[in-house]
């Protein structure tokens, strides 16, 4: 076989596999969340469909597929159609730069365990997370319902506010790793994960990640009991499903990013890299669910105060401190 064909086939095989794994993982993350939340509230959670409710995701997909899918009469039709797709596609795309294991040797070929190791991986991640805001905002605006609009505007302000601290928390990481490539960033953590080198940046990134995932305590864009779902109030059927899938894939992405940037990626003793990576990502996802089971929702003014008056100055200070410390140690 010619060289380019092998490379092409490897790319397609890898992409297909990653795509399936991501979707399955997202579906089972929903089940895991419902189960864990159930247990935290002293109830069993879904347990009717299949053993331990393990077929629940499948049942959910069938239900969403057979629901009526309509476009409200006052909605901006094309934006309404575009928005959920945008939310799902941007979430799926971000995984392209996540290295989930050390390079593998297959049939004498070096196969890096990442869709493509961009030399601007960090920027790619931040750019797509900015684009993901559009899915939510356009969806809420195009619905032409006041609940959706409120959810969308709130969400927009929240996401862009916390994106700043998230971006600033990554500056120390780039300083330490001296590269934008996510693989290089993991390599730079061979000895000590950056969470221990720069715990403040880790903490800021963690909080911003929870805010970016629009989850409790930062779930104001969809606050069920006042906005009845927020930006996706008017969505039904599989369009709602796409928002939902996007949200849970986003959760996996944020878990992966936390792992890559701060928890040493695939690095770890004894077990293979992919296993370590999965353990870390699933643990972070569990942590997100745990937070949801524990925290109350913030008020909107508290949310904005926290983002602008505490997190942003703190992350700026962290950049300056890290820079000064690095130079001081260098002499």
């Amino acid at each position: 076989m010619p060289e380019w064909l092998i490379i092409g086939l490897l790319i397609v095989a890898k992409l297909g596999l990653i795509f399936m794994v991501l979707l399955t993982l997202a579906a089972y993350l929903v089940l895991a969340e419902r189960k864990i939340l159930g247990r935290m509230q002293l109830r069993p959670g879904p347990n009717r469909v299949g053993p331990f409710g393990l077929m629940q995701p499948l049942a959910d997909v069938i239900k969403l597929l057979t629901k009526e899918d309509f476009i409200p009469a006052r909605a901006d039709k094309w934006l309404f159609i575009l928005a959920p797709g945008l939310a799902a596609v941007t979430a799926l795309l971000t995984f392209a730069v996540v290295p989930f294991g050390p390079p593998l040797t297959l049939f004498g070929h070096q196969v890096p365990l990442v869709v493509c190791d961009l030399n601007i991986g960090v920027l790619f991640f931040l750019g797509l997370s900015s684009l993901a805001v559009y899915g939510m905002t356009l969806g809420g605006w195009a619905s032409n319902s006041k609940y959706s609009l409120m959810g969308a505007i709130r969400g927009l302000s929240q996401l862009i506010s916390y994106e700043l601290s998230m971006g600033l928390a990554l500056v120390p990481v780039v300083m330490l790793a001296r590269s934008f490539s996510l693989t290089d960033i993991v390599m730079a953590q061979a000895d000590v994960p950056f969470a221990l080198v720069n715990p403040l940046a880790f903490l800021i990134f963690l909080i911003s990640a929870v805010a970016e995932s629009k989850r409790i305590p930062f779930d104001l864009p969809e606050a069920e009991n006042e906005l009845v779902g927020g930006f996706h109030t008017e969505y039904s059927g599989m369009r709602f499903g796409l928002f939902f899938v996007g949200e849970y894939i986003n959760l996996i992405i944020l878990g992966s990013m936390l792992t890559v940037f701060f928890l040493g990626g695939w690095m770890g003793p004894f077990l293979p890299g992919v296993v370590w990576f999965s353990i870390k990502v699933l643990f972070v996802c569990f942590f997100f669910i745990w937070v949801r089971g524990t925290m109350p929702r913030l008020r909107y003014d508290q949310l904005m105060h926290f983002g602008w008056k505490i997190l942003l100055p703190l992350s700026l200070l962290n950049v300056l401190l890290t820079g000064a410390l690095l130079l001081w140690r260098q002499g």
Partner: protein
Amino acid sequence: MLENYLPILVLVGIAFAFAVAVVILSRLVGPNKPNDIKLAPYECGMPLLSSARDRFSIKFYIVAVTFIVFDIEVAFLYPWAVVFKQLGWYGAVTMGIFLFVLIVGFVYEWKKGALEWE
């Protein structure tokens, strides 16, 4: 260099096809019986009270404007962070001056009450 982005292009294709396919599938499988009430915006079971194309708080605009300033600053910080060690103290002091100017603006905004939500 550009061929690095080929897998991403393929992934865009797959993700997009997936999104289109599930929506079309649900159109085919699900029922489709629209009526006026169903197509009206949600209003907790009441007739529509007011349009969604209404005014909303100016504070959201202020957040957006402030965001742009800081986002550009963050974008400026990134290339600096990569070559941080090569630049040494010279780079650090230069960026310090840039950040100082920005922080002065931020403090002004804070004192003016642009960040208050009460």
